[in-house]
């Protein structure tokens, strides 16, 4: 067990190294001269040279990569071209709204999607099942900002139940905080719910055909206990895996959701950085999110051993 945990933790190091190498190399992969693109159309040759030097493009690739990795290990993600502030400081200022949005979305999505999938599998072929599957297809097709605008229009503008836009820090109390997050979380969660519900249904259909389910029925275990204790527990591994993989959808969607609902988080920071061509900020955000994604999936992998004692690597 301990050996497995150590091996699994060590296995993430090469992945993170490749992520770092790849994110770093984007500057070199991109067609054209990135320094000229970042400097903009009105830039003088001197401006372009200054940006080239600040990105380190005037130094050899490997030297620059070594220095960059060393900086990151010390928590230095570079300096913004636009504000001259350290990127890590800018990220720290904006992380709370994004973290709040993602946690609320995750909790909402899992608590809605898993029961949806379970019921659809239990009532396979009925109207309920068809409705869940129809929702899953729609959820994959309607982009997050479209859901966001429709929700904001109906529930904020027309019905006036919830605030249209903005964010209230958690320190001002749970009520105002959650009020501002409900609509963005539903918008962001739609794709995620569709994905989890679909996998939950598929896995549950498989598990419900197993012999031990028939045995449980035969000895008179109640329907709810069969579904949620016997079946769901054995279907947990694929469901939890897809919850972890789907975090990538949440991260990408958060950037857009924050624009729609004017939430001052990391997504907003990224969008502002795009408009100002502030590449170090974008690079820092991409790197941070990718590392978070790798770590979340590491934790999930380690959790498998708790869900399923049969797993021994």
């Amino acid at each position, binding site marked *: 067990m301990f050996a497995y945990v150590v091996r699994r933790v060590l296995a993430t190091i090469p992945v993170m190294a*490749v992520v770092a190498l*790849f*994110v770093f190399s984007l500057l070199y992969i991109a067609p054209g001269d990135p320094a000229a693109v970042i400097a903009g159309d009105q830039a003088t040759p001197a401006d372009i040279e200054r940006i080239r030097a600040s990105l380190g493009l005037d130094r050899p690739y490997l030297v620059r990569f070594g220095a960059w990795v060393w900086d990151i290990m010390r928590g230095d993600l570079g300096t913004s071209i636009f504000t001259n502030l350290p990127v890590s400081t800018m990220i720290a200022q904006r992380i709370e709204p994004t973290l709040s949005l993602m946690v609320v979305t995750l909790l909402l999505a899992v608590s809605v999607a898993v029961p949806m999938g379970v019921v659809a599998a239990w009532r396979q072929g009925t109207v309920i099942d068809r409705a869940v599957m129809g929702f899953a*297809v729609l959820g*994959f097709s309607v982009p997050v*900002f479209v859901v966001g*605008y429709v929700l904001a229009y109906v529930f904020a503008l027309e019905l006036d139940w919830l605030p249209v836009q903005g964010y209230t820090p958690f320190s001002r109390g749970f009520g105002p905080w959650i009020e501002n997050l409900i609509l963005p979380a539903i918008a962001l969660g739609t794709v995620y719910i569709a994905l989890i519900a679909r996998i939950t249904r598929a896995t549950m259909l498989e598990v419900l055909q197993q012999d031990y389910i028939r045995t449980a029925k035969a000895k008179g275990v109640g329907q709810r206990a069969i579904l949620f204790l016997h079946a769901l527990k054995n279907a947990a591994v694929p469901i939890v895996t897809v919850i972890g993989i789907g975090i990538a959808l949440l*991260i*990408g969607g958060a950037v857009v959701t924050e624009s729609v609902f004017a939430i001052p988080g990391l997504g907003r920071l990224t969008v502002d950085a795009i408009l100002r061509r502030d590449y170090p900020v974008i690079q820092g955000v991409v790197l941070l999110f990718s590392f978070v994604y790798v770590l979340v999936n590491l934790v999930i992998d380690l959790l498998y051993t708790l869900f399923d004692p049969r797993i021994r690597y």
Partner: protein
Amino acid sequence: MSAAILPPPGVNAAAAMPDILPPVKPKKGFIGFLRRNPTIAIGGFLVLSMVFVAVFAPFLFTKDPTALAPVMRTREPSAQWWFGTDMLGRDVYSRVLYGTRVSLTVGFSVAILASLAGLTIGLISGFIRVADSIIMRVMDGMMSIPPILLAIALMALTRGSVGNVILAITIAEIPRVSRLVRGVVLSLREQPYVDAAVASGTRTPMIILRHILPNTLAPLTVQATYICASAMITEAILSFIGAGTPPIIPSWGNIMAEGRALWQVKPYIVFFPAVFLSITVLAVNLLGDGLRDALDPRMAKRL
């Protein structure tokens, strides 16, 4: 020794009985195929309609999508402006119809390019052991970067153009296709008919061409439709946040980005491109689901 083994009762009787159920004759031909796969029929019809709109956009009662008319700005939808006008007086109906071109171009191009690149990488990875471990580590790393963020980072480094959007989204989609192809190749290599081909001295290129490639086409086609759908969403997202096609091109994401400032008072500017985008993506997804069920009947019951 013992009595002759008697046929089970009913076998003789069955011959004497008329068929209660006439044998099912599946309809043949293309129409029969569409009947049996309604999702392909619906999805395919909608996709073809969108292709029609894209190709014939100039002849569908549209005006110049970039013509400014400041006097006529933000008019509500009416007989003259079917979808209204935007804040610069441009006709939203014409812009949305021309936007179909951008979305379909990006979706189809990314699907084709990512499939070809993924197929090549997947085949190399599935056949060359040394390359496999390196390629798969690189793909693991690339897959750890959320695709939209990867596309955003690439777009921040290049000038906004349709070509660069296609390139950025393609790079973000390649790892998933490569993974899929590699998995299929590895499982096919274990098949007895591949062993037989190897044993009878078939060379590797011929094995790939005759035995591996044809069998990757079905899953690859299904995957390509999903990539097409997700590429259209990604393009709209990129344009919406200002990292996609240049603002002068009327893409659905750009129209929505321009309508964003006014959406509380003039929601129709955002509404119409949103509806078109959703319907197109839904159509491509339906087509993908239908193809998946038709090409791999075992999956049909499960998902």
